[in-house]
């Protein structure tokens, strides 16, 4: 087994757990409406770590990047297009 990679995996997992602790901790502070945004941002960082290291996006296979990127872009289209309507109504 590739020792280097295994070490990386452990480090990433540690970072993920730290982020989990961070976001739970933050939820006890009163950050107003920013709290939710921060919690989502932390989630995004966690998701990126999982994607990049665990799911081996770091390998950089073009077709894989293309599929992963397309999924994100399309999700963005769905959400932004619909919320654009909701937020600008009236």
């Amino acid at each position, binding site marked *: *087994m*590739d020792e280097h*990679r*295994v070490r990386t*995996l*452990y480090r*990433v*997992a540690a970072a*993920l*757990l730290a982020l*989990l602790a961070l*976001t*739970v901790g933050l*939820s*006890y*502070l*009163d*950050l*107003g*409406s920013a*709290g*939710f945004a921060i*919690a*989502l941002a*932390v*989630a995004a960082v*966690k*998701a990126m770590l*999982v*994607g990049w*290291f*665990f*799911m081996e996006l770091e390998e950089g*296979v073009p*077709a*894989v990047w293309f*599929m*992963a990127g*397309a*999924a*994100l872009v*399309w*999700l963005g289209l*769905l*959400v932004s297009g*619909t*919320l654009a309507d*909701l*937020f600008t109504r009236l």
Partner: protein
Amino acid sequence: MSAEAADSPFTDPVQQREAARIGMWAFLGTEVMFFGALFLTYFYDRHLYPDGWVAASKHTDLLLGSLNTGLLLVSSLTMALAVEAAKARRPDAAAKRLLATMGMGAVFLVFKGLEYAEHIRDGLWPGESFHFEPASLSRPGELFYYLYFTMTGLHALHMLAGVVWLSALVIASRRGAARGFDTHVEVAGLYWHFIDVVWIFLFPMFYLVRGH
């Protein structure tokens, strides 16, 4: 083996491994959009009922939720390690790590079940008997829990499928490092990590809406 090989359109194993990965990623794209429709619904209704969302989120079980998140994160680690083992042609090591992954997945599901039972006891199952304090936010609260059950339920179904898939791989590992075993583990790993990612977002959306 031979029957499969005759059918296979591939000329070499590298091509096959890449095809499997691209296929899995394409499928995950589908899954992103499948969950995406629900995520959109969540944010849509959150915008309509911000107060209801805050109030309803206070009834979720942060302790169990955080524990479950931790479990899933660690299970992703063991999954990734299983993939490494499979790639290194060590099916026994891979099987052990797969078992650990599955185990954490199963515990996750049990915890989830406990949470559901608790919520249902508290009258948070949407419908006739739905009961929510403050009553003034009862309708948004009901929507929140409708989405909660739908989204975490769909997620749990995916987990269940993942656990079944991994157990099939554990059984397959007994046949040794057969051709394609490493690819299978790798592809299952992608799926498992994806479920983890979904949960990473569900966690703040339902447990951390604002404050405690």
